[in-house]
């Protein structure tokens, strides 16, 4: 049986993860790089790792992306 596949999600950690504070610090830049049509992940690998792991920061990211893309002005 493949224990790793389902436990990975539960116990996954990425050493590059910058944490919630590190993500908040640069989230606006990350979003604007993405809105400019570029992939922000190579430039911000630790932030990207965090967004994969933290549901709360991922929700903030999705909300900020939507706001910056369509609600500005």
């Amino acid at each position, binding site marked *: 049986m493949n224990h790793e596949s389902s436990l990975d999600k539960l116990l996954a950690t990425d050493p590059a993860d910058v944490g919630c504070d590190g993500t908040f610090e640069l989230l606006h830049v990350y979003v604007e790089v993405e809105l400019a049509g570029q992939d922000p992940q190579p430039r911000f690998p630790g932030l990207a790792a965090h967004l994969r792991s*933290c549901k709360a920061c991922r929700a903030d990211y999705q909300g900020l992306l939507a706001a910056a893309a369509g609600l500005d002005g």
Partner: protein
Amino acid sequence: MSSVDPVDGDVSDLALGRTVDAESRLWVQGLRAAGSEREAVLARLHALLLRVARHEVHRRSASLQLRGPEFDDLANQAADDALLAITAKVDGFRGESRFTTWAYKFVMFEVSTKLARHFWRTTTVPMDQQDWDRLPDLLGVQPHERAEWHELLVALRRAVDEDLTDRQRRVFVAIALNGVPIDALALELASNRNAIYKSLFDARRKLRASLAANGYLPHTASRRP
């Protein structure tokens, strides 16, 4: 920071090599102004923040039990507190993005915080009760697979009991087993999202190492960030 370090992305070129766009400059100048000019900018910014807050609360409200007045109160409180944070921190805006994108970040934070309060008003979770019966479902274990998973789950439970600190155990059980949102747990423990996340991060790493050491999972290359 013990395990999650805020080191990422070189933005120095963004900060130094990019001039602040005209609209962003006007926002900052307006917030640094005095009298009626500042009041007008504050009113304009609050209206923008409220619009974003309403949109964000609506976006996240699918799984919430928010009635009309609660929805409006939550969005207004988020916009009010975001405006306070923005005016207090405007000197920290470095022009790495549009001013509004930077400002909306505070709305997201405040909406998350307000929704955490709402969670405890509408939900009862036994904080110290470990809901191990839910774990097979969380892991996607099918009923016919439960027997072969039994030993692994017993090992995981033993690792939770024996290898984690009290704090790590409480955080892991609440978030991973009981499904408490991280901001709601931070509120309950008088902490903050980042500190709770660090505890969860350390708990996950310890548990994985314990299961690997006992042959239940393969060893993975591990280094502290």
